[in-house]
């Protein structure tokens, strides 16, 4: 036995406690994923800003293209933001008593579903009005940016539903909740920037 192992026994009877991880693996993995997604949206928003600036002397949105529903989407955005706030409350409720997190988590999921559903209704109306991916760069950017966000929202909602299922079975760990919450926070926090750049 070496001097080190004699001083710091590593077997099951060790007197040393195992150090708590600085960041749970799931959260770290999700953060790395979110970093790549932030760059993805930053690229899309930057391309949109440059193309829009090229149309500075002309009209934006282009002539003949339908206008985006700014007010309806603002109300819809509020549902998404409230969902993010409720998820923060879910975290505090979970830390006090895991079973107490059930209702706020469910509320957060419902508000997220309201946002995604209303976006779907808005898309159907815009398609009926003639705004498609091919109709103009305006339409192309709208569906690419807002559609990418909607895909992320659906994925993050899937994570929240999974977390709710595990919570219901008393099998949800705090690191699992933190991981799925981090993704939903990303979806919530990136939306105001997209709304500002695309809708206003």
């Amino acid at each position: 036995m070496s001097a080190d192992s004699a001083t710091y026994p590593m077997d099951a009877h060790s007197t040393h406690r195992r150090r708590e991880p600085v960041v749970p693996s799931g959260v770290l993995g999700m953060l790395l994923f979110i970093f790549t997604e932030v760059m993805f949206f930053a690229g899309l928003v930057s391309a949109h800003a440059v193309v829009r600036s090229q149309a500075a002397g002309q009209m934006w949105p282009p002539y003949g293209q339908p206008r985006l529903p700014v007010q309806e989407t603002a109300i819809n955005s509020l549902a998404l933001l409230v969902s993010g706030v409720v998820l923060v409350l879910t975290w505090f409720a979970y830390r006090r008593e895991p079973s107490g997190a059930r209702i706020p988590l469910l509320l957060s999921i419902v508000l997220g579903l309201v946002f995604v559903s209303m976006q779907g209704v808005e898309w159907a109306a815009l398609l009926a009005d003639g705004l498609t991916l091919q109709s103009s760069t305006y339409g192309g950017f709208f569906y690419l940016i807002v559609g990418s966000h909607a895909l992320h929202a659906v994925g993050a909602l899937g994570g929240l539903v999974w977390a709710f299922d595990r919570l219901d079975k008393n099998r949800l760990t705090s690191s699992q909740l933190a991981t799925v919450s981090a993704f939903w926070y990303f979806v919530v926090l990136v939306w105001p920037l997209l709304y500002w750049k695309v809708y206003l």
Partner: protein
Amino acid sequence: MTRAGAVGVCTLLLVAFLPEAGHACPVCFDASDENRRAFLATTAFLSLLPLGMVMGAGLWIRKRSREIDGDDARDDPDPNRPEP
């Protein structure tokens, strides 16, 4: 200065001074001010954003690590003390 250091400094100088402006860039030399501003702003945004995220994550992990070290020290002031 060591040989490796000299090579490093020379490489840095070459990288800094050799490249020339890309005149093929459709927006860098655009007559429209708004277009040029958008191009510069998005270039700065896309360059600084990843650096900011990496630095932010590094600082947050450092803060978390110190918090955990503080908790450990409070729970057990002498971690090498043998079990009674």
